[in-house]
């Protein structure tokens, strides 16, 4: 199953050495910029810059291709719909900016340790302390979000195998119900483990 949230790949490239805060700021700025400017050539330039970033970071080509493939199931239908109901320029702009931003986010997570990102989020959320919010918890939510994607993908794979073993090949309900139940059970056990590790204290 394609992995929508690629994990950190160790390296010593310029992109790896950039601070987590800088990379998250670039991601935020790119998000705002691509919401404002999304003509085909503007998106093309942005996409080329992101691909250049992958090259500079010396990330394996298959890592990039895996992400592109995992995006195709949503990007292609979206492009077709936009093309039919709007125009090809709008289609390329919308889908191109979406793909560019997801790949840029992938570049950030592939070259930045989760703990470094959490440190940035905890620092940025420091002002929330005045409102009674623990910034460490905000950072923990980010970490759990990233980790949970892989857990749920693993559970989905197990449910699909169990479904096939019982001959239920195309039953959305037979897939969704156990997946939801198992995900909730996992959340329950994770909560208990977090309490045991003193996160609640």
């Amino acid at each position, binding site marked *: 199953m394609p992995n929508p949230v690629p994990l950190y790949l160790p390296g010593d490239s310029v992109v790896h050495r950039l601070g987590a805060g800088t990379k998250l700021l670039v991601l935020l700025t790119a998000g705002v910029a691509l919401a404002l400017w999304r003509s085909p050539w503007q998106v093309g330039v942005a996409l080329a810059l992101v691909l250049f970033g992958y090259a500079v970071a010396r990330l394996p080509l298959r890592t990039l291709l895996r992400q592109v493939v995992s995006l195709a199931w949503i990007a292609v239908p979206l492009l077709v719909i936009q093309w039919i109901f709007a125009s090809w320029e709008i289609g390329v702009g919308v889908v191109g900016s979406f793909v560019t931003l997801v790949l840029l986010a992938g570049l950030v997570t592939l070259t930045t340790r989760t703990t470094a990102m959490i440190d940035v989020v905890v620092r940025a959320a420091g002002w929330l302390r005045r409102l009674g919010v623990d910034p460490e918890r905000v950072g923990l939510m980010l*970490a*759990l979000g990233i*980790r949970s994607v892989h857990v749920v993908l693993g559970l989905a794979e197990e449910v699909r195998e169990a479904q096939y073993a019982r001959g239920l090949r195309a039953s959305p309900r037979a897939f969704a119900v156990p997946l939801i139940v198992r995900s909730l059970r996992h959340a329950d056990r994770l909560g208990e483990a977090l309490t*045991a590790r003193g996160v609640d204290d």
Partner: protein
Amino acid sequence: MPEIRVASVSHSFGDGAARRPVLRDVDVVLTEHRIGIVGANGSGKSTFVRLLNGLIRPDAGTVTVDGRDTVKDGREVRRRVGFCFTDPDAQIVMPTVAEDIAFGLRRRDLSRAEREERTRAALTAYGLDGHADHPAHLLSGGQKQLLALASVLVTEPDLLVLDEPTTLLDLRNAAMVRRVVDGLPQQVVLVTHHLDLLDGFDRVLVFDDGRIVHDAGPAEAVSAYRALAAG
């Protein structure tokens, strides 16, 4: 070794007609280095060990670890009592191995350098140094359980509670976990169905229907448990 004192503890799950007692008036004091707990499924052993670091609050009675009440002084107790669950996947929080070990140290008053040093030492001690940056979800079952153990032990608890840590593991991985547990200087409370893990333990409690029905050395307790299981 820490003194674990469980005094007149009872606990139930569910409400009304669905209320099911899982511990009935349990009284025990544990001071030994290695304490094993055995019993059938539903006998109350997992509930019992969850009392030891305040994961479960008893309906009646008190639980103290070195005089600290697990309900009133929960935070202090959890800093001293590490807990390792059956399913390592449920207790791995961070995406990569080294980050998960370091996670337990985030809320301790340690500098970044100290955290990194202790993480490195834990990686080496538990044979995970080659996997520091590996995604935790891609480790083998045994390595995941070692990671779960390392993540708890890096915080240097005085007491380690393990709830069936080898249930999901094959023989080789179970032996690996056993070697780690055998080498620990801390007090250990181990719940297990793998009775051979209890060889060399100081004391073994046998649970049945929410009560401690045998309390002896491993050989005597295990044979009593076998007799109980045989009906």
